[in-house]
């Protein structure tokens, strides 16, 4: 003990900085050269090929109907995601419910809406007007029961004309939202199941009921797992909003750009414009996703507010 204490620190020289030849990475240089060449070829094509007609594209991609289309795309994305996430949470909770009727119904819902392609679903919803000219809500089989007893029995609560309710926009929105709910339900379910069962036990031991436990303890923690795939879903939804063109919804972005292309016989520049618009909007969404992930990862990892949402916990031992 005393020996180590009497040995002063200054007698030990400070450790020498390691000097070594770093590992060379010739592969990186080769890759860089190849990629640079390919990029140069691509730029060459963009600049020299007259079919791009950049002037024409920039002149047309900001026209009022196109801007209106951008607004529609964003609006549909936001609304469809709000409905989809809300309904998805409800379906996920139903799916995990001990009640077999509820969990069965949730399973059937998910099965149906994941099985049917979105474009088929949207065209189907767009043609719902063929089924009924009027939508009414009331007791089922009321006329049939009335006929059985020979009376005129009608138990309709309210009704609306199909054309006022199911506009192209509403049909498209509904199709996207309902199908999104099925995917979100699976994502939320995975999130809920990723939360340590000890959390639920601790909450129950404190006297919290199922509802409070879910809302205050389980879901906020599940969010950390739910948010990243939800961000992907939102971006996918923005792109799928182009499917509205087939419902059809006329003030939709892709529809408008294609219309300009068809009218002027200059199709290709307008397709490039569509790429650029979706690219720009998606980039904005990705920034939003980054901040959301950072918010919901609070309390995980020693840094507290680090943006490490995708990093698994556990590996974070001592941080700094």
């Amino acid at each position, binding site marked *: 003990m005393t020996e180590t204490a009497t040995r002063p620190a200054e007698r030990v020289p400070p450790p020498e900085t390691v000097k070594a030849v770093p590992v060379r990475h010739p592969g990186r240089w080769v890759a860089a050269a190849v990629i640079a060449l390919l990029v140069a070829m691509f730029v060459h094509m963009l600049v020299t090929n007259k079919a791009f007609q950049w002037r024409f594209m920039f002149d047309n991609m900001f026209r009022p109907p196109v801007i209106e289309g951008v607004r529609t795309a964003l609006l549909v994305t936001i609304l469809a995601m709000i409905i989809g996430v809300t309904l998805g949470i409800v379906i996920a909770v139903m799916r995990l419910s001990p009640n077999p009727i509820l969990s069965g119904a949730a399973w059937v819902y998910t099965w149906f809406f994941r099985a049917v392609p979105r474009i088929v679903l949207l065209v189907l919803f767009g043609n719902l007007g063929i089924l009924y000219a009027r939508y009414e809500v009331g007791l089922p089989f009321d006329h049939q029961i009335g006929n059985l007893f020979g009376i005129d029995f009608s138990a309709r609560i309210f009704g609306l004309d199909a054309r006022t309710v199911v506009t192209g926009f509403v049909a498209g929105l509904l199709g996207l939202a309902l199908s999104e709910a099925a995917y979100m339900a699976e994502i939320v379910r995975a999130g809920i199941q990723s939360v*340590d069962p*000890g*959390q639920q*036990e*601790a*909450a*129950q*031991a*404190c*006297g*919290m*009921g*199922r509802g*409070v436990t879910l809302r*205050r*303890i389980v879901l*906020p*923690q599940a969010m950390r797992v739910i948010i990243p795939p939800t961000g992907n879903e939102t971006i996918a939804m923005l792109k799928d909003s182009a499917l509205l063109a087939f419902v059809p919804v006329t003030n939709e972005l892709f529809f408008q750009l294609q219309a300009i292309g068809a009218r002027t016989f200059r199709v290709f520049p307008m397709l490039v414009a569509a790429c650029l618009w979706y690219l720009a909007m998606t980039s904005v969404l990705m920034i939003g996703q980054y901040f959301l992930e950072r918010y919901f990862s*609070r*309390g*995980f*990892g*020693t840094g*507290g507010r680090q943006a490490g949402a995708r990093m698994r*916990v556990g590996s*974070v031992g001592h941080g700094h």
Partner: protein
Amino acid sequence: MGTDPSGFAATDQPMVKAENVHKRFGRLEVLKGVDLEVKPREVTVMLGPSGSGKSTFLRCINHLEKINGGRLWVDGELVGYRQQGDKLHELKENEVARKRAEIGMVFQRFNLFPHMTALGNVIEAPMRVKGTRKADAIERARELLGQVGLADKADVYPAQLSGGQQQRVAIARALAMDPKLMLFDEPTSALDPELVGDVLDAMRKLAENGMTMIVVTHEMGFAREVGSHLVFMDQGTVVEEGRPSEVFANPRHERTRAFLSRIL
């Protein structure tokens, strides 16, 4: 040290009473007829090899596990059921929750809510379950965090606390509901040795203040000094019970003797 059992009036209603409690997980029988009484203000320490059913019994007391046979009462009321005539009716979920609110539980792995600060953990249940006003809940929480020596950690998230600190927050969280009974399920087993002392001190203080406690533990020192009643379980039954000093000094049962000789 230990409370003199003769100090209790004969009419004292036991805080916990178990009669022939059975619990099965599938075909595995974990509790094979547990009989036990815990008097108010008593610190009952449960010892026994792992797999002897101590933790399961503890979880039956606040109905985290349903018992398959026998009867279990907390403060004179059946756990999980209501008796009408000679029929048992299962309690509804909110009724079970209301009873759980009166029993505090501390887990081996803390189970703090990681998305809430230490203070948030402590005020959550009083606010959501009892409807305590936020300002009142915060005031009480700060007092409790002070009691367990963590007044300065109120705004820190669990991940930034040591295991011992987390467990003390968990104790404060359980106390915030003003429980009449506290259950400790191996509270120090997941801790580094040098952190065990602080948690045991917090529990000792609680015992001195007259809290009724059931503690499943392997801390023999704590059992001897703080425990007023010792229960030794093995293979799903209570093998031996009595005052800790007596059981430690001369265990009557062979299995108790074997267990103590291995652990002490």
